[in-house]
């Protein structure tokens, strides 16, 4: 209960009110405050470059919002909530380890054009997003501004570490960031994201409102359907490759016996996998779960020796042929888990 207090959307709305707006004018204020020749020089150069750019590149004025989604699930959610009203860019794919992304030039160029950046947060993008946002020179999408949206702020986080020590591997101080494996998490995120879209693009507020309501209705129905389908999975023991499924396990009542990574983010060694087999002798599990981007070998190795199923889950949109959108993601996840029971 205490937990909910901190992470509830209500609390977040309160903090939003305190947040200073009008970031675009900050620079102007700064200049008038200092009245320094540097500022003058900078603004002259800035104006010159801008007009040059507009002349040379003939960039049309953006009629629609440019949305930069860090992960495919947030691109898919934005698509649900905005339809064709936004131009979407997805920074990472389901086949990439989300912890190991580089601040590539293409990402910086896309962030430069973005009106809204939608990410998981909770340090998932810590290795690349800060550089991308800084280098983009786009002050409307910096953390704390209206153009920056972190989904994890609207979700009750699991596995918040009580001990912050790198000896524990690649742990995230704010809790496990892989929140997209529980469909219920999309409800508060959609609520907040829909509001944010309407705030940034007030002309289409009614459109976003309508799509949000439709999404809420359909998503509730879909969750009920998935929960009914997944009933046989309740209480099933599983092995996970990376600690990337706590939200899924929490939702479906799976019992995670052991992980193939000795510590989060560390590669499983042969000796450690032998220990895992030992554990499985004492605490048998029905299947080994891994995400589509993860190496298949360790999971296959353990599954073969323990004579259990190795199940590859799409993990996010695009992680399998059937996971084409958010509905497909969970349809396929449940179907693959049920197939693992056979």
């Amino acid at each position, binding site marked *: 209960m205490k937990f909910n207090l*901190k992470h509830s959307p209500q609390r977040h709305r309160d903090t939003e009110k305190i947040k200073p707006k009008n*970031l675009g004018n900050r620079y102007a204020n700064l200049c008038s405050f200092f009245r320094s020749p540097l500022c003058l020089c900078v603004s002259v150069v800035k104006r010159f*470059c801008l007009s040059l750019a507009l002349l040379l590149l003939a960039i049309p004025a953006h009629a629609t919002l440019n949305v930069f989604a860090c992960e495919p699930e947030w691109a898919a959610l934005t698509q649900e909530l905005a339809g064709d009203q936004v131009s979407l860019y997805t920074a990472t794919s389901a*086949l990439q380890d989300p912890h*190991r992304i580089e601040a590539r*030039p293409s990402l910086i*160029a896309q962030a430069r054009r973005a009106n809204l950046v939608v990410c998981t947060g909770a340090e998932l993008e810590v290795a690349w997003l*800060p550089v991308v946002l800084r280098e983009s020179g786009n002050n409307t999408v*910096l953390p704390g501004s209206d153009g920056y949206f972190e989904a994890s702020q609207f979700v009750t986080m699991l596995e918040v570490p009580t001990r912050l020590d790198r000896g524990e591997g690649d742990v995230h101080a704010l809790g496990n960031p892989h929140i997209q494996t529980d469909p219920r998490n999309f409800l508060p995120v959609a609520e907040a994201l829909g509001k944010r879209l309407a705030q940034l693009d007030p002309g289409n507020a009614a459109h976003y409102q309508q799509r949000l309501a439709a999404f809420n209705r359909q998503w509730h129905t879909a969750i009920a359907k998935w929960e009914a389908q997944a009933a046989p999975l309740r209480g099933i023991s599983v092995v996970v490759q990376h600690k990337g499924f706590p939200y899924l396990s929490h939702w479906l009542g799976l019992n995670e016996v052991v992980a193939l990574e000795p510590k989060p983010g560390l590669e499983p060694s042969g000796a450690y996998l032998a220990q895992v087999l030992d554990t499985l002798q004492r605490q048998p599990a029905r299947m080994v779960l891994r995400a589509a981007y993860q*190496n298949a070998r360790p999971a296959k190795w353990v599954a073969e020796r323990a004579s259990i199923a190795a199940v590859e889950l799409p993990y996010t949109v695009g992680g399998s042929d059937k996971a084409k959108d958010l509905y497909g993601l969970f349809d396929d996840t449940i179907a693959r888990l049920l197939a693992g029971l056979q």
Partner: protein
Amino acid sequence: MIKRIATCTALAVCLNHSTLATAAATDSAENAFNPAFSLILSGTYASLRQDPALPATGFAMNPNPGHEQGFTLGESEMGISANIDPQFRGVATLALDPAGGVDVENAFVQTTALGEGFNLKFGRFFSGLGYLNEAHAHAWDFVDQPLVYAALWENQLGEDGVQFKWLAPTETFIELGAEVGKGRGFPGTDRAKNGSGVGVLFAHLGGDIGIAQSWRAGASLHHTRAVDRESAEVPDLTGNPVTNLFSGNSHTVGLDFVWKYAPNGNLRERYLKVQGEYFRRRESGDLTYDTASANVTDTFSNTQNGFYVQSVYQFVPRWRAGLRYDRLDSGVAQVGALNAGNVISDYAFTPTRTTLMLDYSPSEFSRLRVQVANDQSRRGLTDTQFFLQYIMSLGAHGAHSY
């Protein structure tokens, strides 16, 4: 006023209580605003056949950062960074010299509030020219810098000054940058004058090719003026080591590219990185030969150039192998008549080096490396160089640049 303070305190106490009650790992209010702090620990074991104090043939008037033999504690690099206020961010990198003393490697302020693709940085920073110049030593793919960086930039060009960058609002990454500064590092000389001692311009282009490939290419220009730049132990035509002084203009142009490939763009499993850089420097001015005795001054101009190409391949998670080829050209100098019988104008030798590297990273925060180099940068003195190195990163682990 008192009432306001009281309200604020009450509010802060309430907030503090609720935060303490809700989050397990919460800092006390006093250190909650502490900056991100990181420390790099590194060390090397080097086994060399030749004296590392000997410069590459033809480059005695350039710096020679060289190597240290035997067990060496590398510089422990301490990094501190934080947002100062909504407009500014501060970064300091201090290199703790194992022999004692602290070197301020970087100490700059960056503003994120300009918007429209503009970025302003001022203070002490690594120049944005080339590709490798901005990378800190712990992020290098080899134990040492390429020969062209060692000879033309004394490993890395640091600047005290201002950097201004602009990123175009295009899908292709197009970045233009300019720097002015003191010009304290080689090839410039420290100055006690008004105005700027160095000018740098650079442009970067970059993008992705499909999901698996990404690239960046760049061009840079550097201009500075050296005043009484001293070089010791420079061989003259009779073979004696003398001390020379150079004053004049220094123009450098550079080209750089990097290309990366990872199946599905997933860097965790396997990736390949190929990069190369070329620098060409034209210097012209006056050279004073043998300041200790002859002390003859006449005109001197020369064009030096060099390049490296390297590739790093992560063949399985945690393991990477690398290959690098280095080459320098000392040029043929135009020496004024007074010094024609003193100063060597043409060394007729091309320094090269081939380096192999293998490293293992148990986690993102630790790396162990072995490196072997066949160094033919000194005429008649082939060197087989062997290195072992560790690089460990403690504390906040900031995001790396591309």
